[in-house]
């Protein structure tokens, strides 16, 4: 019985699913715990899909739906790139491409106290972590990791930020290293910060390198691994 149900669910894993598709039937897997991620919901005994995308499964029991979109839906523990919109006495308002502005508490920095509140100009680019993302509330950010260390979070200086889809930023963060970054990294030196909200920041010594890297990344969205390498090679040939 158990094996049958798991086999019926696995044939949808890594497949495209549409809203309304039922991926799991809980009535015949009573003594199992499963964890649901974004895009899935439970209707009594059935687990159904809420958004179009690809169904993912990670062992032992996590299911979620992945898709690519321009708007970001905040989730806790995502690292995102935000733009400071306004500063209030206890919060910075940060635009993270979500449906609502995010709050960044002024104390959510490493060693943050009332004495040393950081000053951010409006328009500053910030690399931060989503701490809370509850429906009906503005998401909350922090510029520290879970243990309170700065861990690369904070304001980003210089460089160039561009917007892409959430699918592309997930591809850039995947491991093993995404082919386009791998190929670029062999020839050029640059810094990159990828936010899961579809924003990528690139910084290099010369503006030329920055522009090449940014355009290579933007072009790579629809290309396969091999195509990405070829595209990067051609691009680098042209500038040298």
């Amino acid at each position, binding site marked *: 019985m158990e094996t049958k149900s798991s086999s019926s669910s696995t044939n949808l894993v890594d497949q495209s699913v549409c809203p309304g598709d039922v991926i799991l039937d809980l009535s015949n897997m009573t003594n199992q715990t499963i964890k649901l991620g974004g895009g899935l919901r439970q209707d009594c005994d059935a687990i159904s899909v809420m958004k179009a995308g690809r169904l993912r499964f990670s062992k032992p029991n996590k299911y979620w739906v992945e898709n690519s979109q321009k708007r970001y839906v905040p989730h806790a523990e995502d690292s995102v790139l935000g733009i400071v919109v306004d500063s209030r006495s206890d919060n910075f*308002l940060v635009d993270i491409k979500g449906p609502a502005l995010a709050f960044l508490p002024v104390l959510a920095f490493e060693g943050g106290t009332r004495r040393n509140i950081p000053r951010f100009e409006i*328009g500053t680019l910030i690399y931060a972590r989503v701490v809370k993302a509850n429906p009906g509330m503005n998401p909350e950010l922090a510029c520290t990791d879970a243990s309170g260390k700065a861990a690369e979070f904070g304001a*980003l200086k*210089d460089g160039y930020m561009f917007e892409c889809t959430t699918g592309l930023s997930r591809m850039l963060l995947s491991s093993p290293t995404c082919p386009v970054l791998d190929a670029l990294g062999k020839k050029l030196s640059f810094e990159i910060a990828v936010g899961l909200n579809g924003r990528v920041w690139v910084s290099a010594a*010369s*503006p*030329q390198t920055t522009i090449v890297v940014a355009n290579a990344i933007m072009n790579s969205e629809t290309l396969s691994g091999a195509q990405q390498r070829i595209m990067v090679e051609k691009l680098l040939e042209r500038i040298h």
Partner: protein
Amino acid sequence: MEQRLANTWRMPLNDKKFIETALLSDLRLDGRRPSDYRKLTVKLAKQDGSAEVHLGQTHVMTFVTAQLVRPYRDRPNEGSLSIFTEFSPMADPSFDPGRPSDAAVELGRVVDRGLRESRAIDTESLCVLSGKLVWAIRVDIHILDNAGNLVDAANIAALASLLTFRRPECSLAGEDGQDVVVHPPEERDPIPLIIHHLPIAVTFGFFSNENLLVIDPTHHEECVMTGRMTATLNSNGDVCAIQKPGGESVSHSVIMHCLKLAHVKATDITTKIRDAVEIHNNERALRKIKRHSSSVAVDVCGEKQNQLDASHLDKLKLEEEEESPMECEASPSGQEQSKDGVSKNFTGGPSSWDPYSECVNSDLLKASLASRGPSVPSKQKDSRRETKPKEPPLEIKTDSTPINKALTAGQNNKGKTLKDAVKPKHKKKKIVSSNNEN
């Protein structure tokens, strides 16, 4: 408020700084040099008088329509040209639905001025009956996607659609030669507008650093630049108009340099538009040729019968295809109807400044809506001649003089229902007045 704040597009300070530093070494974000134009594609629809232009990511669509109206009193022999813009919030979240923004008004004005002041379109050839009926040409510009430099894209689209636009042919009939007959396109081929030259708008961006200058700025560059200038030139290098709305002051020599650059670009763009129009015209001519397929000529034996049928069917289809777009273009009223759907949402006033609208009788303006009617190609008539015998295939409208809708929208922006309510009462008035005249 909150929601609006979350939805607007923002640019981080890093990008602003980066764009300027990259420009110092002659680099732009999309890999162009400062004096390069983005990739331009002109797409012309099968239907005459509509064009779509892609300039990089910028996407603009235009439609041209014509209507028979009464001319302005001081220019009895001239038709009119009016430009309307629609900035859809879909193109850019910063565009508000409702009132046209300053950018929308400026865009319409720049395009309008380029065409009008240089007399690019021969308005006198639009006259049908001096002092009574002329053609009013209306250009609707729809912004579908904003990625910067809307003015140039809109201007190119407007030119391309004007080049392909054809108006139905008119002739005079009746015992005193004062009745206007509008010929449907099946009867007589519609005629294109007379366009003397193509005024091309080329936009430049200036930055706080005086040496920096870009041509065809993108959306990002528009956020950073401190001044802009649009020069409208034709391929001969004649300057038709220059628009420099505030911002950074620019020296004389820089403007001369810009005009030289603009001339080169205008020549390139003119060839592109002309090529696209030529392809369109060729296709149009091909569609017109009635093809007799070879199988008709061949002696038909049993097996070929099927083929013949098939080819016959094809031919029929071809004819159908041929007719349908023409019907649209044939009847201004038919187009009018489809446009009405759009114009319900379209609340923008005319962006064209119209010096002569004051001369038009407001009674006639109110009557204009009455002229919009059946989609059958209709014979339009002067209101005073009521005693014409009706010809069965053509519907004769006797109620009113059609007036440029543009004017109506300009003077009376209250929406359609109000005007509809006015109409019947007004009709009566008309009849009375015409009786008095008789």
